[in-house]
C-alpha cells in the first residue's frame, strides 16, 4: 500500500490528470464528431480538479514516490501549479479554434493533456531516467501537436523541424546522462548530489553538464538552440504555440533547476556559461524581433529573449537568483498567456496575423487593445505591471551577487531598451496607426475567452502592486532547491 500512499502524498495531481486522460481516450473513440466538445469540457474539469488537488499536497515537506524517482517539494509544487494553470488556459483558448481540427478534436485534447502530464512529471522528477521519460512524453506530444493542422504546409514544416531539432537535443542530453551514470554509477539525483559532494567528478563532469544542459536549453529555446522556435510558433496551431512558449518552457526550467546542483566543483564555469547564454538569448531574441511583421513570429523572438532573463536567475547560482527566476516565470506566464489569448481572439475572428492588421483596433475595440497593451507592457517591463516588478527583482538579485556580476546587469539593462522598440511597435499599431481606415472589426463578447483575457490583464496590474506574497512564494520555493552554494547569502 506504500505505493498508493506515495501517490496520495506526492502525485495527486498527476494521478487525477492520468484518470482524465484515460477517460478522454475512451470518449475519443466513442463520441461522434458533433459532440466531441464534451471532451473539451471533461479535460477542463480534470485540470480544474487537479489544480485544486495541488493545494492538498503538503508544500512544506518533501515527499517522494516511485522509489525516490519523483519528489514533491515546494519548488516542484509551485511549478506544477503553474503548469496546470497554463494548460488550463491553453485549453480555454481552443474553444473557438478547435473547429479547424474537424473530427480530430478529441485527439487534440488528449495530446495536450498527455503533454501536460509529461511536464508535471518533469517538474517533480528526481531521477535521470524519470527526467528522460517525462521529457520525451512532453516532446513527442508537442511534435504531434505542432503538426496538427494536417493540410497546412507550414504546420507540417513546424512539426518536422521541431522533431529533428528535438531528437538531436534529446540524444545530446541522453549522451550526457550516460556519462553521468558512468562517473557516479547512480541514476537518482539525490544520490548523485551526495556522491559529487564527496568525490570530484573530474573534467568529464564539465562535458557532461554542458551536454545535459543543452538538452534543456533546447526545450526552453535559449540562444544556440533557439532557431526552431519562430517557425514552430508560426506554423503550429495558435494554442499549441502558446503551450510551447509557456507550459513547456516552465517544465524545462523546473528540470534545469534540479540539475543546477550538479555543478559542485565547476561553479564559475557553469555560472559564466549560463550568463553568456542568457545574454546572447536576450540580445539575439531582441534583435531578431525588431523587424518582424508577423505577430506570432514577434512573440516567438520575444519569448527567446524572455527565456534569457529567466536564465540570468539561474546563472547567478544563488537562492536570490533562483527566486528571481521563479518570480520572473510567474510574471512571464501571466503576461505571455495574455498576449497569446489576444492573438487567438484576433485570429479566430479575422484569421489575420500581421502587426499591421491590428492598426487602429483601439478605436474599434478599446478593451481588447488596452488588455493586449498591458500584457505587452508587462513583457517589456514598464510599471505598474508584474513584469516590471519581476525585472526589478531579478536585477536586484544580480546586484546582490556583488560587483563580479555587474556585466550581466549592464547588458540586461541595455537590452530592456531594445525590447521596448518592438513591444511599442505593436502598441503603436493598435492605438495610433490607421485611425481613419479601421482594418479589422473585432467583436468582444462575454465569452470565456474574453473573460479570461481580461482577467489576465487585470492580474498583470494587480499583481504588479500586490507583489509581496509572490516574492515570498518565490523565495520559499527557491529555498527548497539544492544549489552548489559556497557563499553565505543574506536571505531573510
Amino acid at each position, binding site marked *: 500500500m506504500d505505493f498508493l500512499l506515495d501517490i496520495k502524498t506526492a502525485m495527486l495531481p498527476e494521478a487525477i490528470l492520468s484518470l482524465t486522460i484515460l477517460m478522454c481516450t475512451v470518449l475519443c473513440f466513442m463520441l461522434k464528431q458533433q459532440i466531441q466538445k464534451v471532451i473539451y469540457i471533461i479535460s477542463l474539469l480534470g485540470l480544474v480538479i487537479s489544480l485544486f488537488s495541488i493545494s492538498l499536497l503538503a508544500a512544506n515537506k518533501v515527499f517522494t514516490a516511485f522509489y525516490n524517482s519523483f519528489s514533491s517539494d515546494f519548488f516542484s509544487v509551485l511549478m506544477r501549479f503553474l503548469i496546470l494553470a497554463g494548460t488550463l488556459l491553453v485549453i480555454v483558448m481552443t474553444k473557438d479554434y478547435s473547429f479547424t481540427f474537424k473530427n480530430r478534436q478529441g485527439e487534440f485534447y488528449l495530446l495536450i493533456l498527455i503533454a501536460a502530464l509529461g511536464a508535471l512529471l518533469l517538474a517533480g522528477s528526481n531521477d535521470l531516467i524519470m527526467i528522460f521519460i517525462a521529457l520525451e512524453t512532453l516532446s513527442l506530444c508537442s511534435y504531434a501537436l505542432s503538426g496538427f493542422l494536417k493540410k497546412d504546409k507550414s504546420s507540417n514544416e513546424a512539426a518536422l523541424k521541431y522533431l529533428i531539432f528535438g531528437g538531436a537535443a534529446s540524444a545530446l542530453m541522453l549522451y550526457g546522462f550516460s556519462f553521468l551514470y558512468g562517473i557516479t554509477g547512480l541514476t537518482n539525483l539525490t544520490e548523485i548530489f551526495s556522491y559529487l559532494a564527496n568525490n570530484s567528478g573530474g573534467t568529464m563532469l564539465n562535458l557532461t553538464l554542458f551536454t545535459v544542459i543543452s538538452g534543456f536549453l533546447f526545450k526552453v529555446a535559449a540562444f544556440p538552440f533557439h532557431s526552431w522556435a519562430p517557425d514552430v510558433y508560426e506554423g503550429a496551431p495558435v494554442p499549441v504555440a502558446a503551450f510551447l512558449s509557456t507550459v513547456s518552457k516552465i517544465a524545462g526550467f523546473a528540470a534545469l533547476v534540479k540539475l543546477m546542483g550538479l555543478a559542485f566543483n565547476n561553479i564559475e564555469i557553469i555560472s559564466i556559461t549560463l550568463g553568456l547564454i542568457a545574454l546572447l538569448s536576450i540580445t539575439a531574441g531582441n534583435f531578431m524581433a525588431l523587424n518582424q511583421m508577423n505577430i506570432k513570429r514577434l512573440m516567438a523572438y520575444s519569448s527567446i529573449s524572455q527565456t534569457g532573463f529567466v536564465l540570468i536567475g539561474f546563472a547567478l547560482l544563488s537562492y536570490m537568483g533562483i527566486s528571481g527566476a521563479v518570480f520572473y516565470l510567474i510574471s512571464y506566464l501571466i503576461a505571455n498567456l495574455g498576449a497569446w489569448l489576444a492573438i487567438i481572439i484576433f485570429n479566430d475572428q479575422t484569421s489575420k496575423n500581421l502587426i499591421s492588421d491590428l492598426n487602429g483596433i483601439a478605436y474599434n475595440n478599446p478593451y481588447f487593445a488596452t488588455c493586449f497593451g498591458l500584457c505587452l507592457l508587462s513583457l517589456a517591463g514598464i510599471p505598474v505591471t508584474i513584469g516590471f516588478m519581476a525585472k526589478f527583482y531579478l536585477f536586484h538579485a544580480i546586484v546582490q551577487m556583488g560587483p563580479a556580476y555587474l556585466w550581466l546587469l549592464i547588458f540586461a*539593462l541595455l537590452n530592456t531598451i531594445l525590447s521596448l522598440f518592438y513591444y511599442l511597435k505593436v502598441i503603436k499599431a493598435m492605438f495610433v496607426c490607421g485611425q481613419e481606415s479601421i482594418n479589422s472589426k473585432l467583436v468582444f463578447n462575454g465569452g470565456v475567452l474574453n473573460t479570461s483575457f481580461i482577467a489576465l490583464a487585470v492580474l498583470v496590474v494587480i499583481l504588479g502592486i500586490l507583489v509581496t506574497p509572490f516574492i515570498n512564494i518565490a523565495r520559499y520555493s527557491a529555498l527548497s532547491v539544492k544549489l552548489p552554494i559556497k557563499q553565505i547569502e543574506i536571505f531573510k
Partner: protein
Amino acid sequence: MEFLSLNILIFAPLIVAGIILSPLFPNDKIIVRRFAKGFSGILFIYSILFLLFFDPYNTDYQFKENIKFFSDTNWIEPLGISLGFGLDGISIMLVVLATFLVMLALIVSKKSITTKHKLYYSLILALTTAILGMVTARDLFLFFLFWELELIPMYFLILIWGTGKKEYSAMKFVLYTFFGSLFMLGSILLLNYFHVLNTGISTFSIEALTYSRHYEIPFLFESLIFLGFFIAFAVKLPIVPLHTWLPNAHVDAPTPVSMLLAGILLKMGGYGLIRFNIQMFPEMIKVFAPMLIISGVINIIYAALVALAQKDLKLLIAYSSVSHMGFVLLGLGALNSIGITGAMFQMIAHGLISAGLFLIVGVIYFRTKTRVFSHLGGLGQVMPKAFYFTILLAFASLGLPLLIGFAAEVMIFYGAFTSNSLDGFVLSNQLMTALAAISIVITAAYLLWVLQKVFMGNMFEKWQKVQDITPHETIALTFLSIPIVLFGLYPEGVTSLFLPFVDSLVSYFTL
C-alpha cells in the same frame, strides 16, 4: 490637518482618469472637458492648502504617509520597499507648480484638442499622478516607478495628438528617458547593495540612504552611482549632448502638452539632481562640481546660440528652455546656499515663463497654421492682447528687473560668482560666471528679434482676419502673469519656503 492627505492628492487624479475613461461616463466632449478642468482646479486649491500648512523651518519630510499591503511595515517587505510619500522644502513648490500648470493646460485644451477627448483628459490626469508621485516619493524605488510611469501617458499624448514627425519624436522621447533611467536603476540597486552589505538590511528609503549612511562606499562605486543618477537627470533636464530629444518632443507635442513638458517635466531633472546627487552624495558633489558648472555654461551658451539660428518659433522656445536649464546647473554647481536657492527659483520661474511662451506659440500656430517667422509679422495689430502678454513673458524670460526671471538669474550669478567650488581646478568660478553672463545678451537678442518679427512691422494681407486670444487663453495667461510679476517683486515669498531646507543641505558640504 487630518484632511490633508498626500495619498488623496496623488491618487485622486488617477481615479478621476479612470472615471472619465469608463464607459459609464458620458461621451460628450463639453462634459468631459469641464469635469476634468473642474477637478484640476480643485486639485490646485487642495495643493495650495498643503502650502498653507507647510512649516518651512522643519527640514524633515512633512505630511508623511505610508501605504501598506500584506505587511506591517512596508509595501514590498522582502526588499524593504515602502509606498511612502512626504513633502519637504524642495518638493512642495514643485507640487504646487505641477497642479497649477495642469490646471492651465486643461483650460487651454479647448481649442487644440479636437479628437478623443476622454482619452486625452484621462491621460493628462494620469500624467499628473506620475509627476506628483515622483516629487513626493520617499523611496528610491517609488521614485523610479513614477519616473517610468510618466513615459506611457507622455508617449501617447505626443503620438496621438501631436503634429509633424510625431511618431519619431514620441519614440525618441521614450527611448532617451528610458535609456537614462536604466542608469538610475543601476545606481539605485548598487546603493541598496552597499546598504545590505554594511548593515544587513535591505532598504530603498531615501531618508535611510541619505541620513543614516555611516559606512564608506568604495570611491569607484560611489562615483559610478553618482554618475548613474546624473545621466538620468541629464537626459531629463536636459544637458547638452543628451538634449536632442527635447526640440523634437516639444515641437511635435500639442500645445498643452508642450506646456507641461517644459513647465514641469524638465524640472524633474533639476529636482533629481538636488534630491539625489546633492543630498545623498555631499562628498561626491564636491568632486563633480566642475562637471556641473562646465556643462551648465555649455548649456547656456550653446543652446542660446542654437536658438538664435532657428526659423521656427517653437524650436526657438525649446532651445531657450535648454539654455535656461543651464542656469539651474550653474546654480547647483555653486554649492552654496544662494546658488542652490537660485537654481530652485529658476526652475519655478522657468516653469511659469516657458509654459506661457509655449502657449503663445500654440495660439499663433492655431490661428495661422505656421510657426516660421518669415511668414508672420505685424500680428500685434490684430492680436493686441496676445502681444502684451508676449512682451511680459519675453521680458521675464530675458531677465528684466522686477520680473521673476531676473530674480532667479541674479541669485544664480551671485551664488556662482561668490562660490569657491572650483578651487583647485583650472577654471575659476568667476570666469565661468562671466562666460555664462554673455548669454544674457544672446537671449535678449533672440527674444527681441522674435517679438519684432512676429508682432511688429508690416502685416501680410492674409493675417487681417486673425482673431485675438480667446477668454480661455486670456485667463490662462493672466494666471501665469500674476506670479511672474508678484514673485519678481517679492522673490522671498517663494524662496522662504525652501531656504531653510537648502541651508541644511549646504551644511553637509560646507566648504
